[in-house]
């Protein structure tokens, strides 16, 4: 437990020194405010650019509710650019340690592999989750200001559901970073798989139950309808199982593959 905490602290120190503690929350704040601002000002922007010819904005169209806009932040911003940014920021989580000899160095210390993997995933999850939460709260503030109020319990429930999906994103990318040595390939596989998971949500109810990306859909549903989908609990359990599987594979691979140049 002690080495787990020490390794987590070391990761946090490294994030501070790499300025990740500044740029990642900033990126998510920008992504978070993009959806409400763009949605609100799009007609004005189009008009100002003079390219509104041929576009008719139906005045009888139902005005978008705050919950729908906030759901759009999750579905359109965080689930696309957000996933890419997370995958790119995490692609070296284990791979860099393998490449520069840090992993071999750490494993010659009194550190259990599970503490090393746990410290990596926990610190990066806390920090990624924190960045996403900050961006989400920024979006929430703009939505409440520019559109209608979103009930706080709905907003928090949706965030919790979404953070479970983020936990899967972090553990999956960590697993790929362990299995593969090329940073570019790690990012490519992670982005393709995670966005693929998100794209197929809603195509089949059977696949949705075993798809961790459905947690994002459940989060959006809470914001739009104000109620929790009954399938969310089952999906939550499946997502935690997937996370456990990714952590197990990471742990097993590091424990059984020796990282030496010889």
């Amino acid at each position: 437990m002690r080495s787990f905490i020490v390794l987590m602290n070391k990761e946090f120190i490294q994030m501070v020194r790499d300025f990740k503690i500044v740029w990642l929350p900033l990126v998510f704040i920008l992504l978070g405010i993009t959806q409400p601002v763009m949605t609100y000002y799009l007609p004005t922007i189009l008009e100002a650019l003079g390219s509104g010819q041929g576009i008719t904005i139906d005045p009888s169209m139902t005005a978008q509710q705050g919950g729908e806009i906030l759901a759009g932040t999750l579905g359109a911003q965080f689930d696309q650019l957000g996933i890419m940014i997370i995958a790119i920021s995490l692609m070296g989580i284990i791979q860099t340690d393998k490449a520069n000899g840090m992993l071999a160095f750490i494993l010659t210390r009194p550190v259990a592999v599970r503490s090393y993997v746990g410290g990596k995933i926990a610190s990066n999850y806390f920090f990624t989750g924190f960045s996403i939460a900050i961006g989400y709260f920024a979006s929430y503030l703009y939505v409440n200001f520019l559109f209608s109020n979103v009930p706080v319990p709905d907003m928090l429930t949706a965030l919790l559901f979404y953070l479970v999906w983020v936990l899967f994103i972090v553990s999956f990318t960590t697993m790929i970073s362990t299995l593969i040595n090329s940073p570019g390939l790690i990012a490519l596989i992670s982005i393709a798989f995670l966005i693929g998971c998100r794209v197929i949500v809603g195509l089949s109810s059977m696949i949705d139950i075993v798809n961790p990306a459905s947690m994002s859909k459940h989060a959006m549903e809470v914001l739009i309808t104000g109620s929790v989908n009954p399938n969310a609990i089952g999906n939550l359990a499946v997502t935690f199982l997937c996370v456990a599987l990714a952590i197990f594979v990471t742990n097993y691979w590091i424990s059984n593959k020796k990282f030496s140049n010889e």
Partner: protein
Amino acid sequence: MLSIKSLEKSFGKKILNGIQLDIKKGEILGFVGANGAGKTTTLNIITSILESDTGTVEINGLTKEDGLDYKKQFFFIPDTLDVFKNITGYDWILFLMKLYDREDIERLKEYINQFSMEEVISKPMGTYSFGMMHKVALIAAFTINPPIIIMDEPINGLDPNAVVIFKKSLKKYVAEGGTIFFSTHLLDVVEKICTTVAILKEGKIILHDEIKNVIGEYTLESIFMEKHI
């Protein structure tokens, strides 16, 4: 203290061929061999980076099966330390001290002073030269004060001043009850600071004895060359 029995390892061809070695408490053992003789492989097996094909390694009666208790018996300094670029030397040593549960800040300050690293210890390790990285690793090792320090080519990159401090620190550490096991190409260093020498050739120990028994009218270099060719 450290006991190696019948160690064998192959990477396609045989690298280690039945290594037997016993190191007693208080010894400074120089592990000498040509490139590719199997020195680093031996150190990597002792430190759990690699698994041997056959044979056993024991430190103070503990084997790798004893897990973290085994790893607490030694501090390993590899030949390359190209890691932790954004962390300061001080933070890095504190990090290691916490892993070993040995947080003696006074002792740390003493070694920082000894190695004249007061001014650079608070800078990121990415700004360090190769020799500075090694100095920081040595400070960590001597501060943590494990039963045995294992080093792969520890003198590489050290300036002459640091080599003198290194020798003094080794002797102090051994006087406090420590044991040293290091690989090197520098035979004069072995002659000057080691109590024991082991020469490795083609995966076998061909000589293992106290320095005083090995060198008399010959230098270690002449003995090494004769044994080696």
